[in-house]
């Protein structure tokens, strides 16, 4: 089982079933929606890694709206648009709104799988980077608390050492008193 879950949105039943079959065969977790409304419901109810949506669909929720809803729910979600050759300009405009990529119909499955692999790799890298960041923050916190404790300890030892020096150099006191006082300072530190 691949770790990616995909929502397929297309009003054309042939393409929808074809995508579902091929993606399932490649071990992706797939859910399908036959229009934008169902897509919105599914997006709000479940979490996906990738949305694969047709650009032109009947009703008020087309591919662009699905993209906007998906990005609003989770800005990390990757969206790939499926488009007819004639609407490539719209697809490019959609990429400016945050779509990751677009595929032209008829769908070339080799191309689709390559793009999905790329997204999977990027998401793995992103997660690793986040994990490393957390690990680094933890290490930094532990290191800083150790260093700060040592820094304060060194400073207080230095202070005691200075006092010991002043005491030992104090000519007004007899030697034995100086030594006893100095030992007391050391004992207190």
């Amino acid at each position: 089982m691949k770790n990616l879950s995909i929502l397929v949105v297309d009003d054309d039943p042939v393409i929808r079933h074809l995508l579902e079959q091929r993606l399932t065969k490649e071990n992706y977790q797939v859910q399908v929606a036959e229009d934008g409304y169902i897509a919105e419901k599914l997006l709000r109810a479940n979490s996906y890694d990738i949305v694969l949506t047709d650009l032109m669909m009947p009703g008020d929720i087309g591919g662009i709206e699905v993209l906007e809803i998906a990005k609003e729910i989770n800005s990390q979600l990757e969206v790939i648009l499926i488009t007819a050759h004639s609407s490539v300009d719209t697809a490019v405009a959609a990429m400016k709104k945050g779509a990751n990529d677009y595929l032209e119909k008829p769908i070339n499955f080799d191309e689709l799988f390559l793009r999905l692999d790329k997204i999977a790799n990027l998401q793995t890298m992103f997660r690793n980077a986040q994990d490393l960041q957390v690990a680094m923050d933890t290490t930094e916190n532990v290191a800083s608390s150790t260093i700060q404790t040592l820094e304060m300890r060194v400073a207080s030892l230095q202070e005691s050492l200075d006092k010991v020096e002043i005491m030992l150099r104090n000519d007004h006191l007899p030697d034995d008193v100086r030594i006893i006082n100095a030992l007391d300072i050391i004992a207190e530190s």
Partner: protein
Amino acid sequence: MIKITPAEQQLISQYIQTITGIYLDQSKSYLFETRLSAIAEAQGCKSYQELHNKARQDPSKKIEKSIIDAITTNETLFFRDKGPFELLQHKILPEVIDARSSQSALKPRIKIWSSASSTGQELYSIAIVIKELLRDSTDYSFTLLGTDISDAAVAQASYGKYNRFEIERGLDRKYLQKYFTLFGDSWKIKDEIRGMVNFKKLNLMQPFTSLGKFDIIFCRNVAIYFTLEDRKKLFSKLADSLADDGFLVIGSTESLTGVCPKFVPKRHLRSIFYQKK
């Protein structure tokens, strides 16, 4: 990518240390290849030796500047490590304000310096803390200065625009809404904060007494790239640039033990700050 030879590693390492103070040992020489290769190619150089010669002979210092930008650009975040900003808000600022208010009947003047400001996140975070702490900051006169060795960093800091990635870690949502405006795909610092700060170019290896004395100096995670000798010089100069009762804040994993006897560490909650002896 142009490969670097061992002899070139030594040459470039020395050159970088001379112009920036940053000491990169053999283990970091991959940085030369990843960061300087593009500059070498753009200059039509086939080796780092050639780039080095060209940079030294260039009277406009353009190549040197681009090398500085490439080597010194480091990740920095808003409120990177919350400790220093909590320290500023709850301990340092109140103490400095009290001290300056009692010294004179005039409007207290408080000077703060972010001495390696990079792309500005630290200084803007300081400005936000001041704004949050003193709603009516017109009762005080603040000078907030940010300096960095890299022209590119100073330019980006002055512009105050950050992409999502630069902004989403560290910065609280409430501050994002309050102090930034969405600008295309990025966020731009609002004028009320931008207007509080100034940025300029400064190489910490060079003298900086002309900046005057500061009440608070931030010098975090910069000296770690210097040799011990250069670190000693830097903190000694910083001590001279700090008011007698001023505060120094260094990186949370840095230490001044064996570096500068002019400072004593003091602890406040989970953070340490330094004052002059």
